[in-house]
Structures are given as C-alpha cells and as structure tokens.
C-alpha cells in the first residue's frame, strides 16, 4: 500500500542500456559508475595472487636465515599477507590493490564514496564464502547473476568494483562552416549530432557517410553532403571558439 502512494524514484530517468550504475549524490546529480564484470576481476585477482606468492616466497627466503625467530615472524607474515594484503591496499591506496590497479579497477562503496576499513575488512573476510565449494564457485555465480556483478562479500559489505575513469582527451571537431538545422532539434538530437562530430575520427569515411546519409532526407540535403552538413550543425551548436 505504501508503495502506491510514494512517487516512483527517478521517474524521468530511463534505465541505462548498458551496465552503468547510477548513484544519486546529495547535490542531486546522477553519477554513472561502470561496474566491472567477472573476467576482468578474476584477472585482477590472479595478479594479486601471484604477487602475494612472490612476496611470501621472497620473505621466506630471507626469514629462513633467521631460524626460530624467522619461523615465528613467518607465520605472522603469512597471516598478514593472506588476510590483510587486500584490506591494506584497498583502504590506503584509494580502493586499488595492485592487481586492480593493473586492470584499471577500484573498489568503492555503493554510494560512490571511497571504501573504509570496516567495509574492506568485511568484503575480504567473506571471500572465504565466495571460495566455496571450490575455486570461487559461489563468488562467480553471484557475480554472474547480480546486475552489478557483486560477489557475496560485496553484497554484505555494500561495495562495488568499478572501472576507474580515464582522463579524456579533447576531441577535434572536423572543420566545417557553422550552420543551422532545418528544424528545431530536441536535446537528445543535439547530443547525438555533437557525438557524431566528436567521434568521427573513430569512424571510417565510408561508415561516417553511411550513418550520416540516414539523416539526409530530414535535413533536406543530398546524401553525399550529409556528413559536412552534420558537422556544420555541430559547429553551430558548439558556438564560436
């Protein structure tokens, strides 16, 4: 009953087509996060596993020279590395263990804020359950079934593994005479045209022409001139630089 009276949340926003996960900040901004899937996370974990093995191997060689004291230190180190490696890196290195850093991932809380001690400890302790019954079976299953690719530890800790955002390079718009469209453009149409101009260098000439010629008729231009015309409209939308 309660649900029917409450306003539907984000009624104006259609859910994204891809796997983006929208976080609404207190400022009223929707921030898209890109959850990372099973494969890339497994690779990151494999890197971390190898690195841990390497660290332990080296330390044990050093400790072997220390005799009994070394054996005691060794088991404390084994404990530290096997249970705390992930936690320390995640909390102190902005959610990135070396493997995640390598693969361009990071861990954040569900609301997009950096991960803290308790959440990190929790998600890494519950790894034991993800490992069951063998070789990360439960973790992989949960990861594949969850819309945001969470394993069980992530579910309990309320954390999310996302792709780190990479710095963007300013795209060069193709040269064209600024023009006005033949009819008023809606906002999505404006963005689509700007996107077409910004991303044209990624397309082959033939493909750009093919895409643009779809719009030739509504724009009232001959098909071969559609690309230049669209670029012109984009220039016009952007305004004088």
């Amino acid at each position, binding site marked *: 009953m309660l649900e029917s009276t409450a306003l539907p949340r984000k009624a104006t926003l259609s859910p994204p087509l891809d796997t983006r996960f929208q976080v609404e*900040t*207190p*400022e*009223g*901004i929707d*921030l*898209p*996060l890109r959850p990372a899937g099973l494969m890339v996370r497994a690779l990151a974990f494999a890197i971390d596993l190898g690195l841990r093995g390497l660290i332990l191997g080296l330390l044990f060689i050093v400790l072997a020279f220390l*005799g*009994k*004291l070394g*054996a*005691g*230190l*060794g*088991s*404390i180190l*084994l*404990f530290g590395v096997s*249970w705390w490696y992930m936690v320390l890196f995640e909390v102190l290195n*902005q959610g990135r263990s070396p493997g995640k850093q390598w693969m361009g991932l990071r861990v*954040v809380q569900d*609301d*997009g*804020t*950096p991960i*803290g001690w*308790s959440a990190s*400890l*929790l998600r890494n*302790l*519950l*790894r*034991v*359950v993800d490992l*069951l019954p063998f070789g990360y079976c439960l973790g992989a299953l949960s990861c594949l079934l969850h819309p945001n690719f969470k394993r*069980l530890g992530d*579910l*309990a*800790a*309320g954390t999310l593994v996302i792709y780190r*955002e990479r*710095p*963007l390079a*300013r*795209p060069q718009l193709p040269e064209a005479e600024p023009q006005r469209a033949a009819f008023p453009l809606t*906002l*999505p149409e*404006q*963005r689509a045209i*700007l*996107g077409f*101009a*910004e991303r044209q260098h990624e397309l082959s000439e033939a493909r750009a022409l093919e895409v643009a010629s779809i719009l030739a008729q509504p724009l009232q231009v001959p098909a071969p001139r559609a690309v230049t015309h669209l670029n012109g409209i*984009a220039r016009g*939308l*952007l*305004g*004088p*630089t």
Partner: protein
Amino acid sequence: MKQSLFENRHKAQWTQFALMLDRLERGKGTSRLDGFPREYRQLCQHLALARERGYSSFLVDSLQQQVLRGHQQLYRHRSRLGPRIAAFILADFPRLVREQWRFVLAASLMFFGSLIGFACLVYLFPDLIYNLIPAEQVSQMQGMYDPVAGHLGRSAERAASEDWVMFGFYIMHNIGIAFQTFASGLLFGLGSAFFLFFNGLMIGAVAGHLTQIGYGQTFWSFVIGHGAFELSAIALAGAAGLQLGWALVAPGRLRRAEALRVAARKSVLLICGVMLFLLIAAFIEAYWSSMTGPAPITKYLVGAALWVLVALYLLLAGRTRHAPE
C-alpha cells in the same frame, strides 16, 4: 548559451578545482582548501546545466569525472583512528556484545554446550575418542600433555625465540579459525553453527580424554589461562556469523540484501573485538601458559582471574554514560 561560451567562462574555475582535487588525492597541502565544498557544488551546478542544455558528450563526461572525484573527496570518511580504537575497546565493543546478547547466547550454547557435552561423554565412555578423532592425533595430544615429560611437548628449556614461533603460530591459526567461523555464517548461519559445534567437539573430546587418562593437571593448568580469551573469542566470532545468517533467514521489514548489509556492519565490529581477544590469547598462550615454573595452583588462580576479568569486561565496561567518547 553556446557551449564554447560556457566553457570559456568557467574554464579557469575548473582548472582551479582540478588542482585542488590533485592536492586532496595526494593528501598534500590540504591547508589551503577552504573553498572546496563551495567549488564542488558550483561544479555540480555546471554539470547539471551542461546536461540540461544538451552540451557535447565530451564536456558532460569530463565534468562528470570531476564531480565523481570531488564526491569521493568530499564524502570520504575521515576519522582519527586512535581515539576511535580507544573508545571501541573501552566501551563500544562490550556494549555491542550486550546489545547482541541473543546471538552471543546462542553461539555460546552451541560452542560450550558441545564442548562440555563431549568432554563428559568421552570421560564416561573413553573409547568414544577414537570415533571422534584420528588415533595418531590422539597419541600426539597425549605426548604433548604427558606429565612425565614435565613440559608441554616442546624442548625442555624453551628459548625466547621459540615462544615467538608459537606466538606467530597461534595468531595465524586461531584468528584464521575465528574468521572462518564468522564468514561461513553467510550460509544462512549454518556454517557458523557447524564450526562452533565442531570446534567445541574437538576441544571437548580432547579435554575429556586427557582428564580421563590422568593428564588433567598438565592439560587444565595449560589451557585455563588463555582459554578465557580464546574460547570466548570463538564464541563471539560464531555469534557474529549467526547474526549474518539470521539477517538472511529473518530480514524483518527490510529487503534481504539491505538486512544483510545492516547486520554485516555490526558483526564486523564484533570481529574486530574478536581479533583483539585472540591477540591477547596468543600472547598469554605463548608467554604464560607454556611456562612450567609456576605451580599448577598459581596457574589455576590466574586463569580463574582472567575468566572473571573477561566476564566483567563484557558485562560491565561502557555502562556509564560518560564512558570515553
């Protein structure tokens, strides 16, 4: 407003903000950042405007990245760790244990129940031990607590370095068990229940067997000291695990995922306390329990005092209103 005009007008402000972000992320020169929240909100407004006016993806995306980075800096949890740890030890942990008394009680019943139960059973029916524990393990245990040997299974004069070995071993082994007991609670509490029961069974069977064959003196005087911390820690770890499982079984008015998250936040604090207990236990076990010098009666008295101490700590600490905040 055209996009270029918009960009030109605010470009300086955005570079300024990017510099602030860099400084915050590297944690250096954070003294000159008074305007950060204001700048951040301004940036949020710019992003909203850029979206609303249909500016190009490049502009919207790069503003979005800046806002995300700003969001992470503004809303990160910064707290002084020292005072929080002190408050946790002095008040919050025992309070939490008392608050979760139902789970603590259930876990204690499972663990100590199976421990005492199997100790009695093995004491009454000595042959039962061989059905519970492999024979070579039994003889190994017997060797360790043989009163004739006069020491606890290790070389007669233990060097300090050997205490170190055992200290390291106890930390790894015991905290590992506690973590396992806790984490397996995610399987609807069944895993925790199993580990509580199983560990109780093993310890109880060994205790019953050793008492029955007359090694009781060496065994009990060895275990009573650190047992206060170690056994209660295992029970508390189980309680934390049961709490996780219960959130899945009976989530109440929340959705299961939400209930799990709420329960997990509390149970991880319990686990922090458990780690503390196990560190103390490992210390006592390596440096006090293994000493053969003090007479058994001294050990019993100290052990009893430690049990009372643990009980008083969990029952009474942090009850006053003005406990250290």
